[in-house]
């Protein structure tokens, strides 16, 4: 099997994961494979390992769906508990409901204001900082930074997970905190970027809510993609498989699109892999 074939197998394996997984880990998983390949790890073994991981991830989803479909009350109750534990990850020994403060985001445009209002009303020393992000991450919690002591009752009890803007994957849409929280924390929240402003966090440009969502350009050749890209009026950079940086140099038309990420409101970087067109007979 040629290196190109192995690269295609790797891309195929990553596509076997559920969309939520791809939205969250897809970019890093591709980069990780490149780095490991440079370390001498065979692409074929990585592809196989990703395939096994994808099967497990899909199996978890299937099991959850089956549970929800059963009419047995006990099973439904158990599944509900499982669903709750999936949506809200709470460490061992959670506090009682009365001891928990719930800070929800109900309006993506007002996310920072909503969280600030909850924190202030409970006299928590928690700041909220907004960062420019791609459309799918607007109005979601990107991360929390502890700026003081955070162990025990001063830590976050859980995160409330919901869909991202545009329907992509899973985003953090709220926090559960102990009512007697006395630590110091900074919550980073995504906001819409101004024209040309660089994103603080990149996002897969093909995920729902992003520029190329539903474009079906993934897997197509550069030659086929260029006319579509021209209609979008954005700066397109290119990153050939194995390279570390995005450049303005347009790869040869027979390269295939394997992914891409948004850099700013007006620019994207598309990843391509050099693969021999099938019309030439391929390799090995």
């Amino acid at each position, binding site marked *: 099997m040629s290196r190109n074939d192995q690269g295609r197998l790797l891309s195929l394996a990553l596509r076997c994961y559920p969309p939520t997984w791809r939205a969250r880990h897809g970019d890093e998983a591709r980069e*990780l494979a490149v780095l490991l390949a440079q370390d001498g790890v065979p692409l074929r073994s990585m592809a196989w390992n990703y395939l096994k991981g994808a099967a497990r991830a899909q199996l978890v989803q299937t099991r959850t769906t089956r549970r929800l479909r059963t009419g047995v009350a006990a099973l439904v109750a158990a599944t509900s508990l499982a669903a709750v534990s999936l949506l809200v990850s709470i*460490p061992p020994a959670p506090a009682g409901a009365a001891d928990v403060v719930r800070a929800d985001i109900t309006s993506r445009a007002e996310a920072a204001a909503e969280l600030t209002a909850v924190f202030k009303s409970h006299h928590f020393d928690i700041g909220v900082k907004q960062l420019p992000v791609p459309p799918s991450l607007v109005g979601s919690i990107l*991360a929390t930074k502890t700026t003081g002591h955070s162990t025990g009752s001063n830590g976050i009890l859980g995160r409330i997970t919901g869909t991202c803007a545009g329907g992509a994957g899973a985003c953090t849409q709220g926090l559960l905190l102990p009512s007697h929280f006395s630590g110091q924390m900074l919550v980073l929240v995504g906001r819409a970027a101004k024209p040309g402003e660089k994103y603080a966090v990149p996002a897969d440009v093909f995920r729902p809510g992003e520029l190329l969502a539903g474009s079906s350009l993934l897997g197509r050749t550069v030659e086929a993609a260029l006319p579509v890209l021209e209609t979008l009026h954005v700066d397109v950079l290119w990153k050939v498989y194995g390279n570390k940086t995005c450049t303005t140099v347009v790869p040869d038309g027979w390269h295939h699109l394997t992914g891409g990420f948004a850099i700013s409101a007006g620019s994207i970087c598309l990843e391509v892999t050099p693969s021999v067109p099938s019309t030439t007979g391929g390799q090995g």
Partner: protein
Amino acid sequence: MALRKSEPGGFGHDVLRRAGDASVLILTSLAEGPKHGYALIQDVRRFSGVQLGPGTLYGALDRLELLGMIEALPADARRQPYRITSAGAAALAEHLDALERISSVGRLRLGFGGA
């Protein structure tokens, strides 16, 4: 007979006993400090000789995050670093204690078994 949580000398509150080796290796690595996926794989290989597959790594990371034992930090470019939580550190300590007990008994018995 398998040791149960309630039995004296059992696994106690060792919630990692069924989490898989990858989870334990990852928590051990993160106990040193936050790391992203590639750094985790390199560190695990260094201290244990185990080459974690990338699919195995992400599966374990997702499970540990769901259990509240690790948490994601702000992403650096496309690399997502993770750090161990206080719950994860406590679970790891408990698990290592359990392994220590088994290891002691095993060594003792091998010693007396004569080989």
